[in-house]
């Protein structure tokens, strides 16, 4: 067993879990935060993306124990009460989703890329968004409105 002491969406959590428990299992099964989805089980599709100390990671290939001492943010932790995060609002307003299964991962990846480009002083243009989204698959939308959503949010964040 491994002790996992972390902060999830700002709240401290401590549990003893099997050594091999994945972060996504910890979030979904232990904490019932089911907005983080398992799409492909092998870190290809990006439906499981969460923020670990502010950086996007695929929680289906991260051990819960690896997150020891870290701060984890999930899709459930983005909104401030009723106030949606600009990235959430942009996906809603721009029809950036259909079945919605990839959406939480897309939003978490979108926020991460906006922050990284801003920190590096680079422009997050459409070509950059396409490149950055290589690790997030969507089967429904054809990505058009996803790119549009991230562009809008980048201007509002």
């Amino acid at each position, binding site marked *: 067993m491994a002790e996992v002491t972390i902060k999830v969406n700002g709240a401290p959590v401590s549990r003893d879990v099997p050594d091999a428990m994945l972060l996504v299992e910890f979030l979904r099964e232990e904490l019932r935060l089911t907005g983080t989805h398992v799409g492909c089980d*092998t870190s*290809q*599709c990006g439906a499981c993306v969460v923020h670990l100390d502010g950086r996007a990671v695929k929680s289906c290939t991260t051990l819960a124990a690896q997150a020891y001492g870290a701060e984890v943010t999930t899709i459930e932790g983005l909104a401030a009460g009723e106030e949606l995060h600009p990235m959430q609002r942009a996906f809603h*307003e721009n029809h950036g989703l259909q*079945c919605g299964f990839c959406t*939480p991962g897309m939003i978490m990846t979108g926020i991460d890329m906006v922050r990284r480009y801003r920190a590096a002083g680079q422009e997050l243009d459409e070509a950059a968004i396409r490149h950055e989204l290589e690790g997030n698959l969507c*089967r*429904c939308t054809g990505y058009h409105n996803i790119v549009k959503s991230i562009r809008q949010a980048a201007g509002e964040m």
Partner: protein
Amino acid sequence: MSVAAPLPHDAAPLHVTGVARYVDDIPRPANTLHLAFGLSEVARGRITALDLATVRAAPGVVLAMAASDLAREADCSPSANDEPLLAKGEVFYAGQPVFLVAATSHRAARRAARLARIEIAEEPALLTIEDALAADSRFEEGPRIYVKGDATTAIATAPHLIEGSLTMGGQEHFYLEGQAALALPQEGGDMVVQSSTQHPTEIQHKVADALGLPMNAVRVETRRMGGGFGGKESQGNALAIACALVAQATGRPAKMRYDRDDDMVITGKRHDFRIDYRAGVDATGRILGLEFVHYCRCGWAQDLSLPVADRAMLHADNAYHLPNVRIESHRLKTHTQSATAYRGFGGPQGMLGIERVMDHVAQALGIDPVALRQANYYRAAPASGPGTGRRHGGAHSPKPEEIGPETTPYHMPVEDFILHEMTARLLESSDYAARKAEIASWNAASPLLKRGIAFSPVKFGISFTLTHLNQAGALVHVYQDGSIHMNHGGTEMGQGLFQKVAQVAAARFGVDPGRVKITATDTGKVPNTSATAASSGSDLNGMAVKAACDTIRDRLAAFVAERHQTDPAMVRFEGGRVHVGGEALPFEQVVKAAYEGRISLSATGFYATPKLRWDRIRGEGRPFFYFAYGCAVTEVVLDTLTGENRILRADILHDCGASLNPALDRGQIEGGYVQGAGWLTTEELVWDDKGRLKTHAPSTYKIPACSDRPRVFKVALWDGANREDTIYRSKAVGEPPFMLGISAWLALSDAVQSTGPNWPDLPAPATAEAVLAAIGRARG
């Protein structure tokens, strides 16, 4: 009015905050068991030994079952009862479930499923279309054949003969949410099943059969799927049945979710085809006679293969009038996954055949491929309804056979053909002619990179070809506070059906759509539903909900009219108010008064599509209520050294009739196009020579990523109403845009043609390897 408003998806607020629930997210009782299948690694053989002792002894395992442990037959087939849940003595494909494990966790079940000792005496497997043909291994007694006119004579006497053969691969659905089910045992042996399915009634029926219960003892609920695309029409049956059997045997809830690799290895995919063609054409490229032979690889079980292969035949004409045509269709049985429904349901394969013929004829005769297509189009529909607006019988009147609609190869008149106008508008808005010329000169100066451009049309038949499926039911309640509860037989898989139908309900009552509560599809509320498939969801369920709403609305109108001493027909429902006798009463006030007046505020609604008549054996009748149309122009660039390629630009004009929700419809068009282009370019399924699927994860099976989408993507909706009386004159939109992706494949073929003088004979999918080989053929 709420109809035609571009409202966002109803569940968008839930999706962006992560609280939308899929089956795997539903809180489950603490003692729930988790299931996994143990699979055959052999494509064909007899099971000589099956020892589950180590499985049963594994940590967390509560139960392990083989076919011999089942008290009664458990069958998963939607059609022919030929799919046992667990292999019975023989295996028929690599990936077939052989046994079932129930354990205390998902992981424990999956680990244990690897521990069985299975011995299989391997036998030669039929894996390919050619294997099956050689062994005459097929479904149905022989090929289905549809005939119109005399193709053989027309081809023999035609000035030119163009012939060839096209292979096209299948396609993995890759719904982001894998298959999942949860069974919850109830008192008295009843069962409740939560299933990620497009067809709750089928789940109910198959679970009831497997449990030995009448259908009324099983209730199935589906709130949403994380994508379906046809892959959840029948492929969820196995999981639901397995969960229900374990729940019945143990009295504990049981849940099953396929790991992605299992999902890809176990479940069926789009049918791959080979289409042979012989076309007799005149000097202008008009097709005088055409023969198609469709070879359809169905896999080991019948599933939905017969209607899929039928629909391929029904789209062998696409948008073109074929005066003499013969279509022969072989449904071949192989030892591979049982191919199943996938967006378009055979239509895309049939359509790809004729689009290939058009390009081949254009290349052989040196005619512009778009002009050739236009010359072969069906005759335009009259501007107004048939028989109106035209004078007949005068000296200069056209002969009746010249003005009447032309018929399809299955003898259905095409009465609503609008592609002439749509094509003209798209060619203009996409600047096709100038770009084509510019690309030709660019290519002449570019030795390594070559660009290509192509146009393709879509005419897609709307209705289930199994005519009795064209029915739907709805249940609507208005509560005494004026809130509305809406339920119907359709399922939500992301397409926005629930929102569209809620907009219909809101429009009928003249209230804001926010007043309409959208609820999970539930076999206990609306019975005997058809699958949400064949693009029919909003056509059928929209009409059924309208009927239910109108029943309640008429009761409300009669009630208030009587109070105001006026005619019920004068009562209007608009802007959240009921307008009667010069007053505008709040809707909720009228509802409350009606409740107190002892008026029933609940109603069912029903709809059956009119005008359908179809004989699938003779290939004659009217299988479709109407056609949905679209067209696309795609431009690509390819690297002649590596075969790598990109879509540079796509222009689309698509016909949704009078759209119920233009935002949702555009989403279907964009997503459909990209998925269709994926089928024909990067999505390659590879089986090894033992019949094992080697592309069983996204690492090896390449669906379009964000970078694959067209750089420039212009989508417009055609602004005409449906000529048939559909819900608010809208048209179905789920499947038709998928086939717009054919233009991307044709554009690649065009780019390859610029590398040499010969016919490149590009197969599908046009992977980089296939493109390179085609360049070799073009250069000769």
